[in-house]
């Protein structure tokens, strides 16, 4: 075999492997636009006619609008607050190397291991006592608490790589700690902030376990819960279920495709240092 042919074969193989990996998306997409009779006659074939009706009917029958709203509201609030309080905490931890801040750092390292199950029962009881059970703000608060350790560790690793000179110069000019942080450090943290925004968005948006525990009323269900219960009720009307799946993927895939550079950068810096 010649060198050129080998190269060509490798190229074809690469593309085939990738197509295989994303083939389940093909199934999800075609199922979402197939009519019921076509679903029976030839499931996997490319749809003869795009049956957009599935989307409107799925939205009507599943409270999908409400689920989308609940997911958006909780994700936006949780991610905004996580980003703000964790970047501040990470900054101080990275810059102050004393006993107190180091202890907190190690507590966060240890907390990364805690499985949700170990706090599930007490948290469920506390939340109901605090009147936070089955409320979106309660879910947001618990989610923030659970994401703090990971985010602080991720960001503080990055802060250590930012040179201190600018901050020191600003401090000499009389700038306070807050203005040094927000005017100088925060803008320099942009890459890691975007990484943390994407990873936390994926985490909150896709959360199932904590949602299942803390959001048990119909009115506060988010997207994963709506899918879970909708699927239980409608496993026969496949077209509708898959239309819902596609709708729920769209926001997250848009986010991924626009910010993928930061996801990849962040995963690698976090993973290898971590």
């Amino acid at each position, binding site marked *: 075999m010649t060198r050129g042919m080998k190269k060509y074969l490798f190229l074809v193989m690469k593309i085939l492997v990738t197509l295989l*990996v994303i083939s389940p998306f093909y199934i999800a997409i075609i199922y979402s636009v197939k009519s019921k009779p076509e679903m029976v006659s030839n499931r996997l074939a490319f749809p003869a006619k795009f049956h957009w009706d599935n989307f409107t009917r799925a939205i009507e029958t599943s409270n999908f609008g409400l689920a989308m709203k609940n997911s958006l509201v909780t994700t936006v609030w949780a991610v905004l607050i996580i980003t703000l309080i964790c970047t501040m905490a990470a900054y101080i931890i990275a810059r102050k190397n004393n006993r107190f801040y180091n202890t907190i750092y190690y507590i966060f390292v240890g*907390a990364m*291991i805690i499985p949700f199950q170990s706090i599930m029962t007490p*948290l469920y009881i506390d939340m109901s006592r605090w009147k936070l059970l089955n409320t979106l703000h309660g879910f947001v608060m618990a989610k923030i608490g659970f994401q703090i350790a990971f985010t602080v560790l991720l960001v503080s690793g990055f802060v250590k790589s930012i040179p201190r000179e600018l901050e020191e110069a600003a401090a000499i000019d009389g700038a306070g700690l807050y203005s040094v942080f927000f005017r100088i450090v925060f803008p320099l943290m942009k890459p890691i902030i975007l990484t943390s925004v994407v990873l936390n968005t994926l985490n909150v948006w896709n959360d199932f376990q904590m949602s299942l525990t803390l959001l048990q009323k119909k009115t506060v269900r988010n997207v994963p819960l709506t899918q879970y219960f909708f699927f239980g009720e409608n496993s026969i009307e496949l077209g509708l279920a898959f239309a819902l799946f596609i709708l729920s993927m769209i926001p997250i895939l848009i986010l991924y495709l626009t910010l993928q550079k930061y996801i990849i950068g962040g*995963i690698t810096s976090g993973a*290898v240092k971590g």
Partner: protein
Amino acid sequence: MNQKTKKQIQEFTFILPAIIMFAVFVAYPFLQGFPISFTKWDGMSPNKVFVGLDNYLRIFQDVNVINATKNTLIFTALTMVFSNLLGLLFALMIARVSKLNNVLRTCIFMPYCLSLVLSSYIWRYVYSDVFYDIFGIPSPLGSTTWVMLGLAVISVWRDAGYCMVVYIAAIQGVSSDYYEAADLEGATALQKFRHITFPMIAPAVTANFTLLLAWGMKVFDYPMAATGGGPGRSSETVAMLIYNNLFTYFRAGYGQAIAVVFTIAIFVVSTVVSRTLRAREVEI
């Protein structure tokens, strides 16, 4: 108040919100878990009966715990090995920077963006409509023997892209001088991988294995959405068993005791695995 105290207080306000949220929603419930684990309690009624170590002693004889542990470990072993293996193969395949490789990388990582619930549902149909209808392979999710493998495949599909991204970064970080020197010596591709690439990316291997181990041991969403723990209890994992003890069987005290042992087990296993892998990094 002197200048120094004032500055220290100001510094402390930076970390205070994070500490409060962490303390209230993670640390406090975590500590509350210990006293609960020594009681017989349904999770709702005001009276908890103190039973000492009874719950803990029961755990080690409970067939459901043993079954769930076995399922969890099988899943963890499979996902840890195969997500990494595939991730590494994908990475070697497309590590070189090119337009096409970037597109392929974007595609292979895409499953990772989906929720575990969604991945589970899509795969239920991949198994029934592709595996069975086209190739005649019955869905593993319906078999007590193969169900954990079936769930592991879903997880590998979703997480291999994640591992790949970490490996690509590590591979790209290896200086090309090594490969040039090896080329001069007439090394084969396999030798180059064994003696240059693999040792150089060892920290990434450690990171990925440790992460996949933690994810695997905590697995909940896949069995919950794809099989509901079935058929029978053949895919009930430890995380699910704890959930069921609170919300299905109303045995919060016992469930909490399992959760405590579970946490310790995760802590011990991940420490041992990451220490062992780190030590090996030095050897190779």
